[in-house]
């Protein structure tokens, strides 16, 4: 069955009869096959590849062997990132930061993450995530869409497609971006990453602006009332729907839906963005940066306000983790930006009873190497991209907290137990959201496209689930 056809016809019929188009968004395809634990998802994407060695995956051997060559047996046959190839040696480097075991769970956290550590009972630490890609663009694309080459649908648009909208007045997939204090990287971060690919384009992520007012042009001009705007929009919709019946370009149908959404956003967004009703203790919780629009902290609070309103998928991209050099200095800055707001978000969700049905994902597109890139000095070094093993954590809706999953070797280089390829991670996220990863598909170009790929079946990581 061709869902795009079905959707379009349904939308057009609705539009022609003056029915609010978004009402039809509830008619999502019957992909929900399991009991949903999470009704919404927040992805805290740490863009650039944060170092697991400085944050979560403590390896005493790295400190003991600091400066010694990475044993060839550890490195094995796999390729190493091109960036550190050609380097005279690959000296391992121990983290300069101290680790502590959180008392209730025994999970290790570095001194850089005192706030996150307090939330340990909620976190499921996956130490064995593994990705095929070691360059930013393909790795991001893979993490976002299940494939390295562009063109597939992103995870947020899959969740939107599968679950439909939880709030007709806001986009079902919202993207928020922020710049970190660490490395001023220039990796592109564009709409391709939150594109809906072959899915109907109404499921694409809607990116709020990265600085200043998140959404501009919200207010109607003076002299146009809401009722007048409604009348004007009805005319636009009627004429566009008429055009779609003869031209058949699906973009027209999407535009009709986006106009309806824009109309409702005019009412819903000012309220969403008005932090005035938040109590002082909320600002204290998220930290001083919260009052600066476009900061990671402000975006974390905004994420809570979005999911509170039923937005299905909120994705933050925080830049600055690509620490090829000056890692100790930059990672400290990055953690300064993110640790408190991240923990605050979890705590805030918990207080409001939202954490149990909101899945929170923390992680980057890959991790970083056990060995040094560039010059290794007393207190300075860099780490290269590392895809073979890295750490992410999940929390909230459907996830078992206070546990860790997977193991890496003494160097944090290879996965030694329970590897988690991205398609298993994707399958688990979909499962938590009540979607069957093997059935959530879209027929395109002769194939049933899935987030988890059309090749080998993906595994749901059942041991992570409550």
């Amino acid at each position: 069955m061709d869902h795009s056809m079905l959707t379009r016809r349904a939308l057009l019929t609705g539009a022609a009869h003056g029915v609010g188009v978004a009402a039809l968004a509830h008619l999502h395809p019957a992909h929900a096959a399991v009991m949903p634990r999470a009704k919404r998802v927040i992805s805290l994407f740490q863009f650039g590849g944060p170092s697991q060695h400085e944050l979560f995956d403590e390896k005493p051997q790295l400190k003991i062997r600091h400066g010694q060559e990475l044993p060839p047996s550890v490195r094995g046959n796999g390729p190493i990132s091109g960036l550190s190839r050609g380097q005279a040696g690959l000296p391992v480097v121990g983290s300069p930061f101290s680790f502590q075991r959180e008392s209730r769970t025994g999970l290790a956290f570095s001194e850089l993450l005192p706030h996150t550590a307090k939330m340990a009972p909620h976190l499921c630490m996956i130490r064995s995530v593994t990705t095929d890609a070691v360059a930013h663009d393909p790795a991001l694309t893979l993490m976002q869409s299940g494939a390295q080459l562009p063109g597939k649908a992103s995870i947020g648009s899959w969740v939107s497609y599968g679950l439909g909208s939880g709030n007709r007045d806001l986009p079902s997939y919202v993207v928020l971006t922020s710049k970190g204090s660490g490395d001023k990287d220039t990796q592109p971060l564009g709409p391709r990453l939150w594109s809906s690919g072959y899915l109907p384009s109404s499921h694409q992520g809607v990116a709020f602006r990265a600085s200043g007012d998140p959404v501009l042009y919200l207010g109607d001009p003076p002299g146009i009332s809401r009722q007048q705007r409604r009348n004007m929009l009805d005319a636009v919709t009627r004429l566009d729907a008429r055009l779609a019946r003869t031209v058949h370009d699906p973009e027209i149908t999407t535009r009709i839906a986006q106009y309806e959404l824009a109309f409702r956003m005019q009412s819903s967004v000012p309220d969403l963005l008005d932090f005035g009703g938040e109590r002082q203790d909320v600002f204290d919780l998220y930290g001083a940066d919260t009052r600066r629009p476009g900061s990671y902290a402000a975006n974390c609070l905004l994420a809570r306000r979005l999911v509170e309103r039923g937005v299905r998928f909120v994705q933050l991209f925080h830049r600055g983790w690509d620490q090829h050099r000056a890692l100790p200095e930059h990672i400290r800055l990055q953690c300064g930006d993110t640790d408190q707001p991240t923990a605050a978000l979890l705590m805030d969700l918990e207080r409001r009873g939202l954490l149990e049905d909101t899945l929170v994902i923390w992680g980057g597109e890959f991790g970083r190497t056990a060995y040094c890139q560039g010059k290794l000095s007393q207190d300075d070094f860099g780490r290269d991209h590392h895809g073979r093993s890295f750490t992410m954590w999940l929390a909230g809706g459907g996830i078992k907290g206070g546990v860790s999953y997977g193991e890496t070797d003494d160097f944090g280089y290879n996965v030694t137990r329970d590897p988690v390829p991205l398609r298993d991670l994707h399958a688990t996220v979909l499962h938590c959201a009540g979607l069957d990863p093997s059935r959530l598909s879209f027929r395109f170009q002769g194939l049933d496209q899935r987030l988890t790929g059309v090749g080998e079946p993906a595994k749901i990581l059942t041991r992570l689930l409550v």
Partner: protein
Amino acid sequence: MRHAIRVLWGATALVLSGSSAATPKAVDYSHDVRPILAKKCFACHGPDASNRKAQLRLDTSDGPREAKDELLARIKTHDDDDRMPPADFSDGKRLTLTEVEVIERWMAQGAPFQDHWAFTAPTRHPVSTPANTRWPRNDIDRFVLGKLEKEGLAPSPEADGAALLRRASLDLIGLLPTLEEHEALRRDRRPGAYERAVDRLLASPHYGERMALMWLDAARYADTHGLHVDSAREMWPWRDWVIDAFNRNLPFDQFTVEQLAGDLLPEPTRDQRVATGFHRNHLISGQNSEIPEKVHVGYVVDRVNTTGAVWLGLTLSCAQCHDHKFDPISQLDYYRLFAFFNNIDEKAIDGRDGNAAPTLPLSANGKLTTMVMAERAQQRPSHLLIRGEYDQKGAPVEPGTPSVLPAMAPELPRNRLGLARWLVDARNPLPARVFVNRLWQMLFGTGLVATSEDFGQQGEVPSHPELLDHLATEFVRGGWDVKAMLRLMVTSATYWQRSAAPAAAYARDPDNRLLARGPRFRLDAELIRDAALRASGLLSTRIGGPSVKPYQPAGVWAAVASAAKTGMYTAQVYEQDHGESLYRRGLYTFWKRLAPPPALAAFDAPTRESCTTRRPRTNTPLQALVLMNDPTFIEAARALAAKVMHARRETDGRIALAFRLVTGREPAPDELRTLSDTFRRQHTLYRRDEASARALLGVGETPVDAALDPRALAALTTVTSVILNLDEAITKG
């Protein structure tokens, strides 16, 4: 699409093979085999020498043949220790059964090899001879139709004259046709009327503006420096040079040479030196903030990467730190290109004055300058930079071109001028293909090579390889004549097709890769603005000059302004212009890189921080908000309403005229009814509430026409606003 089907059938075929009598279709190396090898093998057995495993190279002609038995055994074994690609490499990169089968069949055919198509010179292929001989107007159509017939498809009917004129006008000058132009075409009954209209468009001074739009993205043109305080620069004289060069139809080879090396031409003219601003458009750093050598290397790297993307369609940047993993571009190749651009002494900016040396004075008092290239007297030595680090110098390198491409002619100087001449040497297989593909993308929405920025082995293979080669060779043969190439494209029957098509056609080929219908896609950001201003009569047709600051919501610049000493630096506070500057074409809007014009950014205009050769084309609610509420579009709606009130007496006539000015066609009776119903409803409200009518008319700085009844004008303004918000208004179809 054929790919996907083949995958499915391949799996079935494998099960049936053995007994099946059907002769398997021959495997094509470029189409079937190389994509598999490139994706799953080249990372360890490809061009990158320092990381090659087992000394096995599979991206060459002999490699796979020599390793045949071992290779087949290793990809077919069930023993995980032996199987290739290795298990620890990654699960995703295992070969599927179908892929194994493709490789087996290819080996059985003797493993015929072809060099990657983009690295071999384009050749003229015999033109297809489709069964339908009446449809084609030129050779483009014969190639397109040949493929359509193979797919069992037929072209769409011709678009009507008005639709076609609107399409061509938007494509060639970026502006809606006027009613007079529509009328002239309708009255011209002689054969070749449309062709004459095309010639008129190509001769218009607005043609250069439209073409510049595409080129400014590629050249990462902006009005601020992009780093630190992001202060202002003055590069608009270069932008005006581009407009003028397209208008003069400067042949593309000369266009290339002047921009890359105008300063090195014998006795360069002032214009030729202005042209070299192309490679001064990159981000420029502030004083004292960085290590000078690091900054310098960053500039040179940007020039290499931009040159690679714009002229070669290659992602050279991969080779900055290591040999390219997928394309035969070594790190040495990279730094040899680097050496061409490494010979300029650049100064930092300090955020107070505009441009950084070297500059060229343009006014008598020397106050107006533009940044240009200027060669150092003494050649600066270049080195391979280990891992791309500015302070990790490896072996010294001399300027040179990538070894996979035809060598530089010995008589060419080893400087930027030689490099530019090498790029546009007819033997170079890439620049002509890359540029005609970009023209195709501009007209049809998707290039013949969809990845117009990457013609390498990770890029897409062309949908119509013979057509691409035909156009590239035709382009060179015709003297790199850009207008002639565009004329060929827009006078083809392929371009002439109607874009309306059955739903099944859109579903089968969403991106119109087979070209069974005419192009239909949303206009670029700047053209959406221009269309509204043009229809309303507000548009200023002045060409060139300093960039302007039209309406913009408060706080957009403030959010990125340098916190301290805002008063010290330029381009920190947005001071909106007045008068004519509010109505200039989008291309003249002041482009601040850290806060690009928000109404344009909502429609996917890039930040211009780096080279962009293909904009995304999203469809979001934020775009609806811009068209509904941006004062630019409200004021345009008001001016359009006033214009039609003066021209017609009856409401319906007024609405129909406004509709026609925007869409290029008469509204159907039911469309007109919808709009006049809207008018009546709004008019009733405003008759009771004149204050609201006046409030609406107060948006925008053009004075309200006192001769018109404000209540009727306001009501009609809401209707023209509806028209400007239609899908058809912002779409080329």
